[in-house]
C-alpha cells in the first residue's frame, strides 16, 4: 500500500527534481499512514539510492538491468505498473518533466488510474482526494478531485519544501519482466551537453535576450552565471537568430523553468517568454527600457546598460565568497 515514487536517474545519481518528488511522496505517505517506496531504473549508485531515505523514502526498488539505463518511457511505464502491482500502491508520484509525463501517461492507461499533471501543493485528503494544479502556463490554478482507486500525481518543482534528514533507505532488487516491444526503437544518436547545468534542475538561471546585441557579447552574462553557479538561458528571438543553442530557449514554446532565482538580461518580457518563467520564486530584470513589460512581473529591477551592470554584479557575487 506504500506511496510509490518514480525517480529519474542522471549519471548514476537521483535528479534533484526527483528528490523533491520523493519528499512530496513521503509527506503524502505520512498523511495516509503508510510508507514511501522509490522506484529506480537502470544503472545507479547505491549511495545515491540510499540517500533518498534522507528525503523520507524507506525502501528503494532498484531494477538495475542495463537495458533500463537509457531513458525509455515505454519500458519505464511498464516496469512502473509492475511495481505498483507488487507493492499494491494506490498513490504514484513523479516529478514533472517530459519523461515524467510520458511515463505517468502510459502507466495511467495500463493501471486505469486517474492522472493529474502539474500538481503544485500537497493533496487535501478528507474523504475526497483533491489536488491543486497549475494551468494556463502558470496564469491560474485548478482544484481537481481524483476518484479512481489508483491515483497518479505529476508534481511541479517547488511543490513541496524538502527537508533532509540523515536516514538511509534500504535497497531491494527488483526484477520486472521486460517486453521486447518496448525496445524496438533504434537509437540513432544522443547529443548531450553534459558539462552544462540543466535548466530544469537549476536553482539559478541567468538569461539573455536581444538586448545582448549579439552572440559575441555573451561573456559578461556567462561570467555572472559562473559566479552564481547558474545555468544559462535565452529568449526565443535569441535562439531563432542562432545566437544561442535551441535547448537554451525558455518560454511558451521552449523550456519552462522554475528556479529560485531568474535573472533576465536585455529581455523585454513578451508574454510568451513570461509563460516559461512564471514558476520562478524571484525574478530580477535588467533592461535599459524602463517601460519593458518584464518589470511588472519582476521582484527586483535595474534600469540601465546590461554591459555595465553585469560585471558589477559578478564582482559583487565574487566579493561574497
Amino acid at each position, binding site marked *: 500500500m506504500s506511496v510509490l515514487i518514480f525517480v529519474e536517474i542522471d549519471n548514476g545519481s537521483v535528479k534533484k527534481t526527483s528528490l523533491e518528488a520523493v519528499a512530496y511522496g513521503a509527506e503524502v505517505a505520512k498523511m495516509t499512514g503508510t510508507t514511501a517506496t522509490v522506484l529506480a531504473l537502470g544503472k545507479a549508485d547505491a549511495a545515491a539510492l540510499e540517500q533518498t531515505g534522507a528525503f523520507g523514502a524507506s525502501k528503494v526498488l532498484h531494477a538495475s538491468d542495463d537495458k533500463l539505463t537509457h*531513458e525509455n*518511457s*515505454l519500458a519505464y*511505464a511498464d516496469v512502473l505498473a509492475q511495481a505498483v502491482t507488487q507493492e499494491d500502491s494506490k498513490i504514484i508520484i513523479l516529478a514533472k518533466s*517530459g*519523461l515524467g*509525463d*510520458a511515463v*505517468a*501517461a*502510459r502507466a495511467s*492507461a495500463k493501471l*486505469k488510474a*486517474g*492522472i493529474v*499533471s*502539474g500538481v503544485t501543493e500537497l493533496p487535501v485528503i478528507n474523504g475526497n482526494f483533491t489536488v491543486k494544479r*497549475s*494551468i494556463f*502556463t502558470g*496564469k*491560474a*490554478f485548478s*482544484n*481537481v*478531485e*481524483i*476518484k479512481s482507486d489508483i491515483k497518479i500525481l*505529476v508534481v511541479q518543482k517547488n511543490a513541496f519544501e524538502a527537508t533532509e534528514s540523515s536516514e538511509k533507505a534500504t535497497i531491494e532488487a527488483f526484477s520486472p519482466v521486460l517486453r521486447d516491444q518496448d525496445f*524496438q*526503437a*533504434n537509437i540513432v*544518436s*544522443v547529443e*548531450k*551537453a*553534459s558539462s*552544462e547545468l*540543466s535548466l*530544469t534542475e537549476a536553482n*539559478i538561471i541567468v538569461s539573455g535576450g536581444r538586448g545582448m546585441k549579439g552572440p559575441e557579447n555573451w561573456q559578461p552574462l556567462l561570467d555572472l552565471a559562473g559566479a552564481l553557479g547558474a545555468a544559462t538561458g535565452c529568449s526565443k528571438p535569441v535562439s531563432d537568430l542562432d545566437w544561442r543553442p*535551441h*535547448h537554451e530557449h525558455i518560454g*511558451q514554446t521552449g523550456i519552462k523553468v522554475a528556479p529560485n*532565482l531568474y535573472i533576465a538580461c536585455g529581455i523585454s518580457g513578451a508574454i510568451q517568454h513570461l*509563460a516559461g518563467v512564471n514558476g520562478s*520564486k*524571484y525574478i530580477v530584470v535588467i533592461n535599459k527600457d524602463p517601460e519593458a513589460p518584464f*518589470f511588472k512581473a519582476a*521582484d*527586483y529591477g*535595474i*534600469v*540601465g546598460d546590461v554591459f555595465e*551592470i553585469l560585471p558589477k*554584479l559578478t*564582482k*559583487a557575487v565574487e*566579493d*561574497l565568497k
Partner: protein
Amino acid sequence: MKILVCITNVPDTTAKITFTDNNTKLNKAGVQFIIGPYDDYALARAVELKEKLGGSVTVLHVGGADAEPQIRKALAIGADDAIRVNAEPVDSYFVASQIAYVAGQNNYDLILMGRESIDFNSGVVHGLVGEMLGIPSYSPVMKLEIEGTTATLAREIDGGKETLSATLPLVLGCQEPISEWKIPNMRGIMTARTKPLLVVEPVAMEEFTAPGNYSLPAPKGACKMIPADQAEMLIKLLRTEAKVI
C-alpha cells in the same frame, strides 16, 4: 500515408484568464480562441508529409461546436477532412479515450498532436493514446522524416537531443522546429468550407477525476527598483532579503 492530427481549441497565449460562476468556469468573454500552438506545428508537418508522400490528413477535435472556426482553419491549412467528438472534455484520460476510440476505427499510420495543450499543460494525452492503442509514443518531437514504414525523429531529452528510428504506427507529441506554422491561403479558405466535418458522439466511459474550482495566483508585489550605479546592492538583497544566493 494516413495521418490523424489532434487539435485543441485554446485561449490565445496573450489572453487574460479570468473565471465566472463562482470560479467554476473559464470566462470566455472577449477571449480569442486559437488552434493550440503546438498542435499547429503538428498540423503543418502533417500537411508537408502528405504533400511529399501522398495520403490524407484528418483533423480530430474533442470539444464543443464553438471550436468549428478553428477546425475549418485546420482544413484551410491543408487537412482533408475533420472529425469532432461532441463532448465537453473532462480530463486528459477522457480526451485520450475519445481519440483512441476514433483512431481504433481507422488505421492511421501517424497520430500527431502538440506536446501539450496550452490551457491545461498536462502533456500526457499522446502517451495515453499510445498506450490505449498499444503503439509507441514519443514527445517532444522536433524533427520528423518518414521513409516507407520507418519514422526517423529527433526529440528533446533533458539537456540535449536524441535521434531515433521506429516503425509506424506511432503517436507523436510535436513542438517547434518540426515545421513552420502555415497561414491558410484564399483557395484553402474557400475549399475548407466544403470539406467534410463529421460530428460524432463520445463513447461512454468511467470518469477518473472531477473538476473543482479555479483560482488565480496572488498578485505580484511591486518590483523593487535598484539604481544602476548601485547595482551591487542587488546581490546584497538577493542574499539577505530574498535569501536565494
